[in-house]
Structure formats: C-alpha cells, structure tokens
C-alpha cells in the first residue's frame, strides 16, 4: 500500500526535527515533506515558474501560522480558494492559542487546530493522535 506524504509548513528547524522525531516515535511511515515558509508551501502546492506542483497532493498539511513571507492564514486561504486543494485536510499546528487565531483558522476552513505543547511528551502524544486520526482513521476526500 502506498502512503501519501505529509506536508509540514514550519520555519523553526527545532520544531521540524521534533516533529520528525515525534512522527517516527509514533511509527508514522508516511514521507514528511517540509517547506519552511508560506510562499514555498504555495509554490509546491500550485506550482510556480521553477517549482513544479506536487504530482500527488499530501494526505494532510500541518500548517504553522507564524511563517516568513506568506503567513499560515494566507496559505490556508489560498488552499481553500483553489479548486484542486479546497478539500485538502489542513491541520493548524502552532504555538499560539490566541482566540483570534483559532477563530480565524476555523473560519478559513481549517480541519483542526492544535497548540504545540511545551512538554515534549505531550507534543509526541499530540502528533501521535494527529497521525492516527488523519492518516488512518479519516476517510480522505477524493483528491487527484
């Protein structure tokens, strides 16, 4: 069985590695694709000049909000505005728990909102649950 990739949009290298570690600790075997700013995320999803678009859409996008260049909410808005990606599952994974961020994310069509806990064990737990839910339990929308 072929596993779809997970797209992580995150600029903090420490968090990228921690996420990678957490995923591997949770025995998630799906490929983790990482882009480090919003613009790159947009490029890889929709294609742009030099960068071709992904041939196959990821199973889920883990999206940080605070990103260089194009911020997470804008990335989410574009994903939802585009015909190809409007049904793509997007999970907001961020340090912020500001009410405003949560409300805006859901308004723009985020499928989940998870605050990254400081405690690494809790973080691993969260990633584990997330992987379990989005990669195993959830029936993904029919995407090409």
């Amino acid at each position, binding site marked *: 069985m072929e596993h779809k990739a997970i797209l992580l949009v995150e600029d903090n290298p420490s968090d990228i590695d921690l996420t990678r570690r957490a995923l591997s600790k949770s025995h998630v075997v799906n490929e983790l694709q990482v882009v480090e700013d919003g613009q790159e995320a947009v490029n890889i999803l929709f294609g742009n000049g030099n960068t071709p678009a992904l041939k196959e859409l990821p199973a889920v996008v883990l999206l940080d909000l605070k990103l260089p260049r194009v911020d997470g909410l804008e990335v989410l808005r574009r994903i939802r505005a585009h015909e190809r990606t409007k049904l793509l599952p997007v999970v907001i994974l961020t340090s912020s728990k500001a009410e405003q961020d949560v409300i805006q994310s859901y308004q723009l069509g985020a499928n989940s909102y998870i605050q990254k806990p*400081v*405690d*690494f064990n809790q973080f691993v737990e969260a990633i584990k649950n997330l992987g379990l839910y989005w990669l195993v339990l959830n029936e993904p929308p029919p995407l090409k």
Partner: protein
Amino acid sequence: MSINHNKRRTARNWLTVFKSGPQRLPLVLQLVGLIIVVALLTGSVVGYVLTNTSRNALRQDALEANLAHAQLAAQFASNYITAVQAHIRVFASRPDVHQAVLANTPEKLQPTLAQFVEIQTALTGSAIYDVKGIQLVHSTAGVTTIGQSFADRDYYQQVMATRQPYLGAPTLSRATGSATMAYAVPIFDDSGQIHSILTGGISLAAFSSAITSVDYGKETRITMIDTRAGGSIIADNNPELLLTQPSANNPAVQQLLADKSGSIEFADDAGSAKLVGFTAVPGFPWGVLVTTPQNVALATVNTLNQQAGLYTSVIVLCAALFGALWMIGLTRPIIRLRDTSLKVAAGDFSQRVRLKQRDEIGELGLAFDHMAQELSDKDTILRSHALDLEKRISERTVELKEAQVHLQTLFNHQETILAAVPDIIMEVDNNKVYTWANQAGLDFFGDDVVGREASYYFEGEQETYQAVKPVFNGTAGTIYVESWQRRKDGQKRLLAWYCRSLHDSEGKIFGALSAATDITERKLAEEEVHNMNTVLEERVRGRTAALQAANNELESFSYSVSHDLRAPLRGIDGWSQALMEEADAKLNATEKQYLKRVRSETQRLGELIEALLQLARISRAQLNKQTLNLSVLTEKILGGLKEKYPDRNVAILIQPGLTADADATLLEVALTNLLDNAWKFSGTREHARIEFGTLEQDQKRVYYVRDNGVGFDMHYIDKLFGAFQRLHKTAEFPGHGIGLATVQRIVHLHGGSIWAEAQVNSGATFYFTL
C-alpha cells in the same frame, strides 16, 4: 324727580309712535259699517237663494208644459192628416171614380173632384194622372195643367215604385199656387196593375190654422216642420212663414232633425232667451216646437225679485240705524278708557275711569283703575328709592376716594420696590413697543426707552421675537430667552429675559412683562469653561489614542511572547528528552536528575508564560455579561479537581442557586484560580474543607471562597494581589504568583472588589463582589 321726568318723556314717545301709525276710521263708524255689510250680505244671499229656487222651478214647469203641448200638437197633427188621407183613399175607391178611371174617361170626373174638394175643406185641389205622370183631370175646371207631365214629382215616383199611397213633400201647387202637400193614391185595374194615380193637395194654411188655433199659453208659439231635406215649416202662428226654412241656429230644430224630443232653453238669433218643448209627429216625417219667451214664462219670479230687493234695503237701513245707536253706547266707555289711559301714560296717575257698567268693559275699567292706583303707589315708592340711591351714591363716592388714596399709596410702594430691584423690568405692548420700564431698565437702555420698539436695542440678528411668540399668542405662560442688547453707553450686553404675557380684564393679551438680568460676565465665564473643556476633551482623545496604540503594541507583543518564547522552550524540553533517551546508558543518576530539572524548569516557564498571557488577555477583554449560576460553575470546577486528585479527601460546601450577571469565560477563570488555591493550600489538612457561599454586607451581595488550609500572615496582605507575588515557598506550594492578580483583574472588570481574611494555619477566605 328725575325718574318721573323720564317716565313722562317715555309716554310722550309712545303716543307719538301711535299717532304716526296708519290713520283709521273711528271705532263707531267701523262697527256700523260692519253691521251694514252683514245685513246686506245676509239679505242678498237669502233673496238670491229664494228667487233662484222659484225661478228654476218655474222654468222647469214651463219646459215640461211646452213639451206636453208639443206632444199634444203632434198627436193632433197626426190625427188630422190621417183622417184627411183616409178620406182621399175612400174617395179613390168610390165605384164611380174607379169605373170612370178604368174606362179611360177621367175627364168625366171633373165635377166629382170639384165636389170632393168642396166637401173636404182641408184640400186645395184633387187630380188624376196616368201612369206616365200626365195630368188627366183636375178639381178646378179649366186649369192649364191638364196634359202636363208631373213625372218629376216625388209622390208620382214613390207611388209608381212602391204601389202604396204616398204623402209628398210640402210644395207650392202648380195648379192653385197655394202651399200644399200632395197625398197620392194608386188606382189599380182588374189585373192589379196601376192604372192611374189620384192626388189630393192638402192645404198647409188650413192645416196650420187648425194646429195653431189651440191656446198653448201666453205668447207661446207653435211651429211644425217637415224634417225632410233640411226641413221646412208646415205650420206656424205666422202663416207667412209656411214653406220657409226654420232658423238653423235653433238647437231644438237641430235636435228634431236628428229625430229627438225633449225641452231646452236657448237664445234665438235676436239674443232673447226662449224655453222650447219639441217632439216628432208619430207616423210622419214632421216635428213640433212649442216656444215661450223665457221672460214671459218667468215673469212671476222677476216680480218676486224686485220685492225682495225692496225688503232687503229696508232691513239694511234699519240695521244701520239701530247699529249706530248701539255702537255709540258701546264705544263711549272705551273712548273714556282711552282718554284716561293717555293721561295716565303722560304721568298723571290721579286719573280714574270710574265706569259703572257691570259687563266686561266695566271689569276692564275696574282693572284699569286698579292698575292706575298701583302705578301711583309704585311711583311713590320709586321716588323714595331714588332719594335713597342718591344718598348711597354720595356715600360710595367718599369710599371710592378713600380707596383711591389707598391704591395710590400701594402704587407708590410698588414703584419704589420696582425701582429698587436690580433686575431690568420692562413692559411691552403687542407690537413689542416698550410702554414702561423700572429704574434698572431706564439705567440700562436710557431714559428714552419708553415708546421705542424692543428690536431697536438688538445687537445683530436676534431670534428673540421668534422665541417669545408663544407669550403673545397665549400658548405659553413664561418664556426664557437670551439676547444681545445695546446698553445706553453703547456696550453690547447679553440679557437673560423671562417674558410673561399680560392679560386685560377679559383675558385678552395686551402685551408682556419681561424681567432681565445682565449675564454677559457669566456667559463669558461659561464660554471659557466650555473652551477649557473642549481642550481637555481633545487631550483626552489624544491620550486615548496613544493608549490604544500602546495597547495594540502590547497585544502584538503578547502574541510574539506566546509564539516565540514557547518555541525555544519546546526545543529545550524536546532535546533534553531526546538526550535522555539517546544517552540513557551513558548518564549516571545525578546527570539524569539534572536533565529532569532542565525539563521541569522549562515547563514551569511555559506555565508562567501561559498565565501571563491570560492576565494580559483579561485586561483587554470585552465583558459579555449574562446570568450565571455560580453554584453550578463551582461544583464543576471542584469536580474537575477531585478527578485530577482522587487521593484528596476534601469536604465541599456549596450554597445552592447563587446567580450573578457576569462574563461566563472570565468568571470561570476567576473561580478556577480561587478554588485551585483553596485546593492547593488545604492540601496538608487531613480533613480539608472548601466552602462557596454569600453574605450580605452594606446591602451588597458578597461571594466568598473559604478553606481551612494553611492561611497566610495578614501582615503581607497588600502583596497578595500583586503579579509574581508569592507568600509561600515554591517547594511547599508550587505557583507562579499571577493567579490572584488575574482574579482581581476580573473582579475589577465587573466593577466589583476583592479582599481576603486569613490567619496562619487557620485557613483563608476570599471575598468578592460583582
């Protein structure tokens, strides 16, 4: 005296009015005239009815008599002619006559015919004709008509046609020249054929005289007419009229021609009235008229008429005479009554009528005398009243003078007061022209203010007139208005006016009374205050904007703190954990302990950041108040704690049904902090107890959270609600010192207050209001 004089004048006026009315005849003449008119009318009506009745009766009698006479005459004429005709028929059938005719020797019969005519005096002549109408023989010898044809005569043609005897129309005899009617009889031969015709000319003169010889009444005339061919007279009192046509205008003739009978009255061609009875003669084409002149028939009535006229005149004359005498007697007391009343009306109340009659006029006289007496009495009373009135008027005049003096004093007093009032008091009429001013008014506007219009003193455009309109049209009692006015020294001053409408005795507005105060200085001061306020407000606005900016900055700072401070913390924690896992075998117990410390401190810092963020968020929160059940909320929070710490044995006392109007999210944060503390600081107690309840203090509801924990020293109470302030060692009771600061923020946001009471080792109580 003056009253009596007035009365006389009134009476005289009344008389003048009476005499200037339309002039009429004296009462006596009017009454006598009335009697004559009544007598004349009665006499005339009675006379007319009487004569008219008898006249109608007589007229009817005459008409009936004339009809009866006409019928008699008709019968007589019928009998007469029938008899003559019978005689002629008998003669025609005499054997000698018959024989001679059939033997064609009629000329032998000439003497027989002559003899027959002589015997029968009704006949003028007799003749025999052959069947061709040729005269064969005549009673008169030697007539020239022998051999002539009479075939044109109607009697010849009728007899030939009908083979019956026939009476011809009246005509002049060709043989004798006299008026006759031919009666023709056929003579038949043995075979029944007409052989000859015998005629007898009946003399109309004889016939007429036989009929008219009867007396039908005075001046009554009888006329018989043959109704054939428009009619011709065959009998009349006047023999000259025979064979002439009767008057076509006579309606009786017209009726006879129409074969009717009856009696009528009509006017003849000369215009005189006639009464006529008429009827047809039975068996003959004739009619009879019996005519009497109307005046002859009604002569008796006319005589009666004349007599009635005479009697009426006599009666009227007597009535007039007696009436006049009677009326004079009747009106004499009335005239006396009139004369006396005129004198009384003229003011002479001593006059009396003194009538002695005992009828209605006598009663009227008595009543009049009584009235005159009453008038005389009233007059006396009036005079005494007049004297009394004059006396009272002079008394009242004295009183009035005293009142006037009193009023003058009052007026002077008021003037003094009005002059002493520092306020300007002005009076205007409805045209806003000043009519009065007190001393302050004169001092302000100048001595020439009265007579000037109010607007003369206006400085610039003033809406004063518009504002005081309700005072002048009566829709408002008092109006306050401020207006800029020119003082007599030329300075522009602001006056505050109170205007009130002035009413006359009928309630009509005739102007307004206005009191004014010079508020120029006050106004200037007010304006200065206003300006200062404006400056202040602007400053506040500026500060608010600055604060808002600072707030926004703080918000973005908080956001950064939240995001950026937590990321490295997570790194430290994560990598410490990674190290612990990867290098587990190489680390000794102390080194592992160090790594654990790193992790626990990291987590503490994470919590601290979280609490700080919450405090910052709460400071800026918008209240969203609703009715909350605090008892239920408390129970829920404590339930969560029990679940988290199942080893703890805590007695919980919650007063049920406590509600408050508050923000649900914030109050949950506040109660969570308070209950967390109570739970934490009672952790060392074997029988821990936590209470939530209310009490009344200064008419305010006070909520409290009480525990029987370690308490604290009241000495440090002022540090209790400060951020990062702690009264206990972290090792004993972990915490970051931000919880109570957050609670205080929330309580203050709700407009309440919070305070605490405690004793070391005897628990603590936190009170708050909302």
